[in-house]
């Protein structure tokens, strides 16, 4: 046997493997492109830079909604070394077993169902990767992370990551601002271009309405990333990068001090306060009581903790009463009747009707000799007579048909005052109230089966008529403006561009401004003169005009309503106050309105007793 020949086995093996490896390298490195693609796939990352949301300023330039940095406690599993669960749990102030449970929950949350193409069976695929970062705890405040951060170096694999979330320096205006929450699948589907899973989106209020303005522009950065996700280098020297652009700031018409004061006054009460600057339609305050601290719905942790409580609260703090609650307006409705009656020439300024209590109850007052007095005394029979004339104008011989024609005209007038139509402010979900029309009554009573006497309670704003507090405030603004309004809106300027175009349109009522003088004079007397129903609304040195209302409530105590504007000659504020179950309008709503107006006009309150009485009162069903 020639053993020396066996060296050939060695030589062949060495040369063979050398040649095979070289060929393989040639194929891999020179011929096959897949690895270059794969390398790019692995190392080149497109980072999305989330812009901070736009800031909200009040009418005086005070920041009312801003951003605050929070921290996520991140981890990368395969960088965790010898985790001392006990010490770690102690640091985070949780139970030791929760640490493992938390890891498990994170892993579990990345389960994804996929359908096998061949078998059609659903299988669970887990997208969790040991080398990718995940949040162990989200949304820690600066104080919370400060406690943890010093100890973090002892726990390799854990680190902190800054995130931007909302911050509300004033704990008010929750129903105006709305809140942010993680995007839902259908919202994601609607705008795939912008949103990604885990993004937040405005869920209510201005955050929702101005989402597109506030969210800004996402930036992108192309990088060469490390396996740990760290940026090693800019890709192509950053030439492809685009910066993130912060959302537009919103300048609100809201006066945050007035808003806060309104919410303070409405504490322990149910209802709304809406104040408008009549000349522009900017909403100065929009109080919904009860409300909640907007900070309690910042971030997923808070929402999880507090949302259910708010939803289950029987007083419905999440319900934006000024926009969505519909009530019979009560006597404030008489203002419009007087105006439209004059315009339609069924009465004149000096028309008088007897206070005939056989038709409808009234309170003790002298007979109203003219419109001013009718408004001042809020005489129910007066407006019964007046509206009857309006509905039955004698345009048809048949009384029923006449009523239908009259109601048609009447509805048009009401709508021109912003009633019964959606008064589309810049918050979604407003309600339009109810102005019953011909079809409405035909449905209830049958065609030509009704006339004024059937529907007479609408004359004094009871019955089927329903109005939202926003519409009431708008009515106050119309009275202040003597005949026109701008749709009430909260945002007076998006960035430097002014409000949305539709808020710059002047809407005239169907009533000429000349007819307003006697009615407005009546409103002045309501507050300023003896026998007026809202003497409590007076403000020292300022002439106030107002009108009380008492909305009948079949479920309990009547609601207290008051609308007003001031100063009389050059109105700067128009206001509507609605206090549920508070009885007569002059008792509760009027003083609240006056306090609000005084606060806004003078900056301080002269009558501390009045203020004290309101603050200490508690009116809940």
């Amino acid at each position, binding site marked *: 046997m020639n053993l020396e020949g066996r060296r050939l086995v060695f030589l062949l093996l060495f040369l063979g493997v050398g040649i095979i490896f*070289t060929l393989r390298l040639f194929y891999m490195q020179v011929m096959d492109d897949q690895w270059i693609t*794969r390398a790019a796939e692995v190392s080149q990352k497109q980072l999305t830079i989330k812009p901070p949301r736009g800031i909200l300023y009040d009418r005086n330039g005070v920041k009312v909604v801003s951003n605050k940095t929070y921290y996520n406690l991140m981890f990368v599993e395969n960088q965790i070394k010898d985790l001392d669960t006990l010490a770690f749990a102690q640091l985070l102030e949780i139970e030791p077993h929760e640490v493992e449970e938390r890891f498990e929950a994170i892993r579990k949350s990345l389960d994804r169902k996929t359908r096998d193409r061949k078998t059609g069976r659903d299988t669970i695929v887990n997208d969790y990767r040991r080398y990718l970062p995940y949040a162990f705890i989200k949304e820690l405040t600066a104080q919370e992370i400060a406690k943890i951060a010093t100890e973090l170096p002892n726990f390799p694999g854990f680190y902190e990551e800054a995130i931007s979330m909302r911050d509300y320096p004033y704990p008010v205006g929750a129903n105006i601002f709305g809140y942010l929450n993680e995007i839902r699948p259908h919202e994601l589907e609607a705008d795939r271009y912008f949103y990604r899973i885990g993004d937040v989106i405005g869920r209510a209020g201005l955050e929702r309405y101005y989402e597109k303005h506030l969210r800004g522009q996402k930036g992108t950065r192309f990088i060469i990333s490390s396996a740990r996700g760290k940026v090693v280098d800019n890709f192509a020297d950053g030439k492809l990068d685009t910066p993130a652009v912060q959302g537009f700031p919103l300048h609100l018409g809201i006066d945050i001090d007035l808003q806060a004061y309104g919410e303070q006054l409405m504490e322990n009460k149910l209802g709304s306060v809406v104040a408008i600057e009549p000349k522009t339609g900017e909403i100065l305050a929009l109080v919904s009581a009860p409300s909640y601290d907007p900070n309690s719905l910042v971030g997923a942790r808070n929402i999880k903790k507090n949302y259910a409580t708010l939803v289950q609260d029987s007083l419905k703090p999440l319900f934006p009463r000024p926009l969505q609650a519909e009530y019979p307006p009560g006597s404030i409705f008489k203002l419009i009747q007087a105006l439209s009656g004059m315009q339609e020439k069924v009465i004149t300024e000096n028309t008088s009707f007897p206070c005939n209590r056989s038709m409808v109850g009234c309170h003790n007052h002298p007979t109203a000799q003219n419109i001013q007095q009718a408004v001042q005394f809020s005489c129910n029979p007066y407006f019964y007579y007046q509206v009857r004339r309006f509905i039955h104008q004698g345009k048809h011989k048949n009384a029923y048909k006449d009523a239908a024609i009259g109601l048609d005209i009447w509805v048009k007038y009401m709508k021109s005052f912003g009633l019964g139509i959606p008064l589309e402010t810049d918050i979604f979900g407003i309600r339009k109230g109810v102005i019953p029309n011909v079809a409405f009554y035909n449905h209830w009573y049958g065609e030509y089966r009704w006339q004024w006497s059937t529907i007479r309670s609408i004359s004094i704003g009871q019955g089927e008529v329903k109005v939202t507090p926003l519409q009431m405030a708008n009515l106050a603004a119309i009275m202040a403006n003597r005949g026109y309004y701008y749709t009430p809106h909260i945002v007076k300027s998006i960035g430097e561009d002014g409000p949305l175009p539709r808020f710059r349109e002047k809407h005239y009522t169907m009533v000429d401004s000349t007819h307003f003088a006697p009615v407005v004079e009546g409103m002045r007397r309501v507050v300023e003169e003896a026998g007026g129903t809202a003497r409590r609304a007076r403000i020292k040195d300022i002439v106030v005009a107002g009108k009380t209302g008492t909305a009948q409530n079949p479920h309990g105590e009547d609601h207290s309503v008051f609308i007003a504007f001031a100063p009389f000659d050059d109105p700067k504020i128009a206001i509507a106050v609605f206090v549920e179950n508070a009885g007569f309008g002059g008792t509760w709503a009027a003083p609240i309105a006056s306090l609000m107006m005084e606060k806004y006009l003078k900056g301080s309150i002269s009558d501390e007793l009045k203020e004290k009485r309101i603050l200490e009162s508690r009116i809940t069903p």
Partner: protein
Amino acid sequence: MRHSSRKYKFTYDWLLMLIVFVLLVFGLINLYSAAYQPEHPSFFDFRTLYGKQLFWIGMGVFLGVVISLIDSEYIRKLTPTAFFVVLVLLVLVLFTEPINGARSWLGIGPFGIQPSEFSKFTTALMIGYIIQGERGKNISKNTVFKVGFILLLAMFLVLFQNDTGTFLVFSAFFFVLYREGITFDPILLFFLNNLFRLRLKSTWVGVHFIPVLFVLIFFGIITLYFAESEHSFAFFPGAEIPGWSILIGILTLLGIIGYFLLKQFSSQRNKRKLTTILFITYFSSILMVGTISYTYLNVLQYHQKVRIDLWLGKIQDKDGEDYNRNRALAAVGSGGFSGVGYRQAVLSSPESQHVPESETDFIFCVYGEEWGFLGSSILMLLYTALLVRLVFLAERQRSRFARVFIYSTAIIIFYHFAINIGMNIGVLPVIGIPLPFLSYGGSSMMAFLVMIFVVLKLDSQRKEVLA
């Protein structure tokens, strides 16, 4: 060293020294890129891996020079002592705390050595030491058993450490035994002649056991491929038949066909012999399929099985279990023809860390990505040249001891080279063993250098030996 004296002639093999030197230089330059620390840019900063590697090379060269001062005869005589010392270390290491699942480090404080790296060296010496006594070409059974015992002892100790890579490398020694004419014939013949009452003098399988073994491994891989698969057949509804039983079925079918063919066509004289061969082949095939399937399906741990599956391409999980290999392939493959440039690696750079273990087991990724096909093929050439040179040196030895040792050195370096580069370019599964002279690591660097120095020493004194 200068030719200062007439008597002294520089007899060390220049070519081998040159190749190793070039590899060391390549290795250091490459490690500098692979482990670069911006805060310690100096090559001689011993806080960095390149600084340390330089130190290890120095240590290796120092040890090598010391050994070179010893006469090769004494090297031979010291062999059992050295083997025993390393053996003790191999036992001691079993009592240490495992690091990354393997008990391979023995050390005090920051300094540690891996006895398994040195055991390759001492085992190579020891095998040479045992075989050297044989004068003729036929080697006695006693020597075969001794060699087998030494080899198995070292292999098992390494296996207990959970060091799969080194364990595999020990199988390299079978090639050396093959070269020395140590066959497994005696064992095979013992069984065949006693159990089957044959009177065979030698078998082809026994003589060429190692090449045959590799053929068997090839079929073993095919077995692995099918062992787990489930097959259902139309005529056997409901039942799913596992792949391994189908393989056994096919073997049985082939056996029966072969048997009938023999009965019909073979001459009376050959019939008995051929039938025996058929039966032996059949039963050993069944045994092999059975053992491999059983081990694969029942004995292997999950992660080992996954590794095999990934390597076989049965499953793909480029971001999960196959992460290391996928990143390594992407790094090497993205090198292109001329590479991305020194210290310009995107994937395997120390900053990006996409390739794990890029200083040790996956050091070739850095080289492949930065130097491309051009650099890689030069490296292949260098290693092949080194190995071929070692074969040439081995074959010119007069002493069997020297030849066995040099062949052992060659085949061990070859195993390291083949397995390491193989996993880096995706033709072998991931088995963590260092690339000689390139990977960072004190023990392996010193062990390889010492081996090279001993080769040089033995070769330089080859003429003093009377064969």
